[in-house]
């Protein structure tokens, strides 16, 4: 494997992706909305909103570990904001690596076919392995890096808005760290594998998005479930979920690597 070739493709694909508003806008706006604007609003809410307006937070407390309960504030408004940002909404940080790896993989593979540049790429001396490695890295690395940045921003916003009133930094908790550095990247890798497989068979980026959109559903279910107070994932549950995602990622990425090869792509050229 010649890494100079791989890096040339990664550089080119990222330049191409950055040249598309359809990719850049969601990549910037969604993390900003979910990981900065939303937690800022929730974090500032106790200062400006009547506690009654926040609803009953008591039902959320039954989900929390016993050792946490003693550390929570008594003010209902502050309690609601702390529980929401520290526990319930933290799975939002999974959405960024999953969404970005989906968008970048669809653009880098199905988009390449749609723009008619795939044949030009296949006509270079890149080996099939170099091609697959470049395509997968182009999607996964930025997704994970931006996912980690997003998680850091979420933690920073939570600490800045609530930390002073609580007299301590609330994040990162152990669960948050596991989500950010293990569950997020593995979910991103699994999503990447699935969308890559779909993208190889798709003629357009839109097709790949539509079919690949299903991979976001488990994450959305997790976010909604925890956000609605239906479940609370423990550290071990998050480690386990990450392991399942890692296993799925290995299988899907191996299959995707096989699909990103001339014997599979060549006959699909128009």
């Amino acid at each position: 494997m010649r890494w100079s070739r791989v890096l040339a493709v990664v550089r080119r694909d990222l330049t191409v992706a950055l040249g598309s508003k359809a990719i850049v806008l969601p990549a910037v706006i969604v993390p900003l909305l979910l990981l900065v604007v939303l937690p800022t609003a929730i974090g500032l809410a106790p200062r400006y909103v009547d506690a009654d307006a926040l609803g009953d937070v008591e039902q959320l407390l039954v989900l929390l570990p016993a050792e946490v309960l003693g550390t929570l504030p008594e003010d209902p408004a502050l309690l609601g904001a702390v529980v929401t940002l520290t526990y319930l909404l933290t799975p939002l940080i999974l959405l960024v690596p999953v969404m970005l790896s989906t968008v970048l993989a669809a653009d880098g593979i199905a988009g390449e076919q749609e723009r008619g540049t795939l044949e030009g790429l296949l006509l270079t001396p890149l080996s099939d392995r170099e091609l697959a490695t470049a395509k997968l890295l182009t999607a996964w690395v930025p997704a994970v890096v931006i996912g980690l940045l997003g998680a850091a921003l979420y933690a920073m916003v939570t600490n800045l808005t609530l930390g002073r009133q609580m007299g301590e930094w609330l994040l990162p908790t152990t669960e948050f760290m596991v989500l950010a550095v293990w569950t997020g990247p593995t979910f991103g890798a699994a999503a990447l594998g699935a969308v890559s497989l779909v993208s190889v068979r798709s003629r357009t980026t839109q097709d790949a998005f539509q079919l690949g959109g299903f991979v976001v559903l488990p994450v959305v279910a997790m976010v909604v479930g925890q956000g609605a107070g239906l479940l609370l994932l423990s550290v071990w549950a998050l480690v386990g979920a990450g392991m399942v995602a890692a296993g799925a990622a290995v299988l899907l990425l191996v299959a995707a690597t096989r699909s990103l090869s001339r014997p599979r792509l060549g006959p699909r050229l128009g």
Partner: protein
Amino acid sequence: MTPAPVLRLDGVTRRFGRVVALDDLTLEVGTGEVVGLLGHNGAGKTTTVRLLAGLLGPDAGLVRVGGLDPVVDGAAVRQRLGVLPARPIVDDRLTGTQNLAFAAAVFGMAPDVARDRAEELLAAFGLAARADERVGGYSTGLRQRLSLARVLLTEPEVLLLDEPTAALDPVAARQVISTLAVLASRSDRTVVVCTHDLAEAEALCDRVIVLANGRSIAEGSPAELAAAHRPGELHFDVGAAQAGHAAEVLARLVSGAPRVLAGGRVSVTGVGHDEVPQLVRHLVAADVPVHEAVRSRPSLEEVYLALHGAIPSEGERP
């Protein structure tokens, strides 16, 4: 005789589902040759190029480029090839310069060499002023010129050009053909041009191979093909007064009916090279003055159409 083959297909068959794109095709291209692959859409030209570049594998038969199997030694083969597909291969979201820089990097060119060469090609193709604009704003012709610049950037030993002027306006097409003619004149460079443009093939190619339904149906230089498949008409300039009489004399000697043309000329077809002196003798013996006997050379287009049965062959003509 073909020089040592750098490109070789031996009994190659390639199917796509039930469609047979190449059917037991055998061809060789020697080092330094300029060969045209002619054929209708679906004749197998693009499949041939993709097999040579290792984008496809054959279902049967042997494909070799410089002795290497493009499927097994794909990277080494493609390092030697410059392939221009029918569609522009440059990315709309990159600038002209970025497209060339990517090609240089992936082909392993030294950055300073690549930069100089890119500037030279951009200038040669009239793209220098727009080199830093995104290709999305280029016309189809400009994109195709940039694609050709990208292919030539790495100075490949073998050029495979699939419809290189199909998307170009006549001026740009002429410019590209001139560039290709210069490239083709280099004895160490092998060029295969797939084209519908028979004038282009005639201008560029030492040899043409005519494909139909995935098979080679004719092969040779344009002159050889003409001689073999459409020898052309023989015109006798006998003067207006004697043209009718000459036609009567010739009608007894040749299989097809002679035609009396304007300017005192009579035309016959289906006459071989060795038969001409005998016809002249008969005409002179019949008191027909033969001022000139000229054989018209058919264009490659006429030969091509005759091969595909689109126009009647000489013998079938009324």
